[in-house]
């Protein structure tokens, strides 16, 4: 049953990253690449009716984590206290920016909330990349000092940074050069992803330009991916046990690779949806590869004293997980139905919805 919930949780998380990822990406494109008011308006239109529903995936994933893996939820949420609260504040700013912008017609007001929306999107992308970096690198579970735990073995607390920004230092921080690198990877990935969404959902003049931008960013992304793979090995030697034992798990890195390579043909795609599918595939592949290579660990320990948090030692009790599976399957079918209805109602380009005018 733990494995079922592990799969469910990761499917939900990767869905969240793909969905809210495109609207963060749209925010970054809005901040850096949109020139005219029309371009900005069409970018906001492209995510108008969707961003709210996308964020529900975060809340729902949090709920599933809470209920299926309460120990991991308690440990990681209190340990990553400061970055999580900062993420909350950024999510609030971003949402407020989107919702309030259209309420007053004054260019200073509009500028202010445009920037809030863009900058919050950018920082959220950095934080989510850095979060992945923190999980990969592992944390000092039990806050071991000189070989002795100062806390219960599954609790920890991370400062935002340490003076050296070194991931291998004794007192780790959320932000070090490794996690920041993954933050940058996330920004580039989501910018490409968001640009693809804009191309898919609008017929804005920005789209032709975006294709060129995507191509250039993808070159950068390919270099960053290789670089971070090498440095990852330096920070935390990656055992390829899972890939060696279960050959089917090669699906994940292959999916990521196809997604990355496919993006280079952006200017040749006949359908607007193709680019978006490739960037989604890349996100899916890189996320699942990371998860699969960590398995069964969910939060690795960096000390010898306390064991890593795994699927097996953080899960809730069997009975709860089993009844949960019952209602979850019903709920999942409903969610898919809503999603299909939503896509059908808002099919095609979104240029005329006048988002922010309601």
């Amino acid at each position, binding site marked *: 049953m733990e494995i079922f919930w592990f799969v469910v949780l990761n499917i939900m998380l990767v869905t969240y990253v793909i969905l809210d990822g495109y609207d963060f990406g749209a925010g970054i494109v809005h901040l850096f690449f949109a020139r005219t008011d029309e371009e900005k308006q069409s970018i906001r239109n492209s995510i108008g009716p969707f961003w709210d529903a996308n964020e529900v995936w975060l809340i729902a994933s*949090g709920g599933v984590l809470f209920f299926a893996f309460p120990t991991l939820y308690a440990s990681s949420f209190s340990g990553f206290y400061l970055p999580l609260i900062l993420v*909350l504040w950024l999510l609030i700013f971003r*949402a407020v920016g989107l919702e309030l912008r259209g309420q007053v017609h004054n260019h200073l007001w509009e500028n202010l909330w445009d920037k809030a929306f863009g900058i919050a999107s950018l920082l959220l992308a950095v934080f989510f990349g850095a979060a992945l970096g923190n999980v990969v690198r592992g944390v000092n579970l039990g806050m071991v000092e000189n070989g002795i735990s100062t806390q219960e073995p599954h609790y920890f607390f991370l400062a935002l940074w340490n003076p050296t920004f070194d991931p291998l230092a004794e007192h780790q921080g959320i932000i070090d050069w490794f996690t920041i690198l993954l933050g940058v990877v996330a920004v580039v990935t989501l910018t490409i992803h968001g640009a693809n969404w804009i191309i898919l959902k609008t017929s804005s003049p920005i789209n032709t330009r975006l294709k060129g931008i995507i191509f250039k960013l993808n070159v950068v992304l390919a270099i960053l991916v290789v670089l971070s793979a090498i440095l990852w090995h330096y920070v935390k030697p990656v055992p390829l046990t899972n890939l060696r034992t279960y050959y089917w798990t090669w699906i994940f890195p292959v999916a990521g690779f196809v997604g990355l390579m496919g993006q280079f043909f952006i200017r040749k795609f006949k359908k607007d949806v193709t680019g978006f599918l490739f960037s989604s595939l890349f996100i899916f592949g890189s996320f699942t590869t990371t998860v699969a290579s960590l398995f069964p660990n969910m939060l690795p320990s960096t000390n010898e004293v306390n064991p890593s948090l795994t699927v097996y030692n953080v899960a809730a009790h069997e009975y709860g997980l089993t009844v949960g599976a019952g209602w979850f399957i019903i709920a999942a079918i409903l969610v898919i139905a809503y*999603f299909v*209805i939503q896509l059908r109602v808002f099919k095609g380009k979104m240029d005329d919805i006048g988002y922010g005018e309601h």
Partner: protein
Amino acid sequence: MVSISAMDDMILYNRLQFAFTITFHYLFPQLTMGLSLLIVYFKWKFLRTGIIDYNDAAKFWMKIFALNFAMGVVTGIPLEFQFGTNWAKFSELTGGIIGQTLAMEGMFSFFLESSFLGMFLFGEKLLGHKLHFVTGLMVFIGAWASGFLILATHAWMQHPVGYEVLENGRFILTNFSALFKNPWLLPSYFHNQAASLITSAFFVASVGAFYLLSNKHITAGRIFVKTGVVFGLIASLLVAFPTGDMVARNVVKYQPVKFAAMEGVFETEKGGSEIILIGQPDMVNKKLDNKIAVPKILSFLTYQRWDAEIKGLNEFADPIHPTNVPGLYYSYHIMVGLGTIFIATMLACAVMLWMKKLYQARWLLWILMIMIPFPYIANTAGWYTTELGRQPWLVYNLLKMADGVSPTVSGGNALFTLLGFIGLYILLGLLFLLLVIKIVYKGPGSNLAVK
């Protein structure tokens, strides 16, 4: 080792942060839940009668609804996170149970609400009026389902059922359906929904009264006042009887010490207890100062017998007394006092409406207009009554507040984020007020066409 006073500070900041963020958050969902019903009513009325003013009314309230909903969402996410960030030990020990209902809320209601809200706000042209009405209905169902699942979580903390405690202190679920058959759940849910409808009905009626008094948007003003008064009267009555009465019976039965504290009963009185109307608790001498009370009424209301015995606070051991008796006592009395005023106001308005004199009765419209903040205060006071009365427990009689806090988050970090939330939410609150005033001032009907 952490010193005692540093530990106390840490718990205090964590409590203040949760109390502040949840109090602020709940200002929005109480309007969302009730208003969704009223908007669905307006839309339905339009479909049935074809009177365009009702469609304009629905569209006007949707604008406020959208803004209010967005505020509810952004202030709601921090609450789910804070179980883990600030109350990690509580989450670890009880997550297998309360995580269940919280995860259900996400899966069953948030997806429903948010998917259909997009269609409801942007889809009138794409969908046509009938389907548009259906999307509104879906948003309403999602909002009320969300309330139900949160109240189920609340009910478990107040009156835990269907669990077993393991040796390591963990609560595990042993009976899923017990969570929903919890005797605490339905009375609290209906009481809360009626209270939420009061907020919305007063809000709508108050805006209507404002239009009538300022002599503009007269048609809309009349619709708002009429609808607000009818719904407001029903809700004000329901919140007292039977729902409020049922909730009080649960408190007497399962949490007698909370009951004694909220009613301000320090001593057990032979031959029946008086009901306290006014008075200030003196916690040093364990008595009530300056009290005005009516003899024997409390016993009668509680047990329908004039001489029924009600246990006073002084009969319970100090460690299980609610930690803030005066706060609890005032919250309860503010809620009940305001509830009485709501019934009186709405009855007066309903009588005048029936006599077709309400739209001309400026004094009554004035009262209706300035009532707008009070349902918010009453709702908040009601929640403070139930939650302050739960102290010193997180899970009633089983897990104490101090044993649920995050072990590694220092008081300094908690205070830092508390200050951040205060600053951010003040900004949000001001912007919300400003924009609602702007929407109200602009009024319904004018340039509302969907672009």
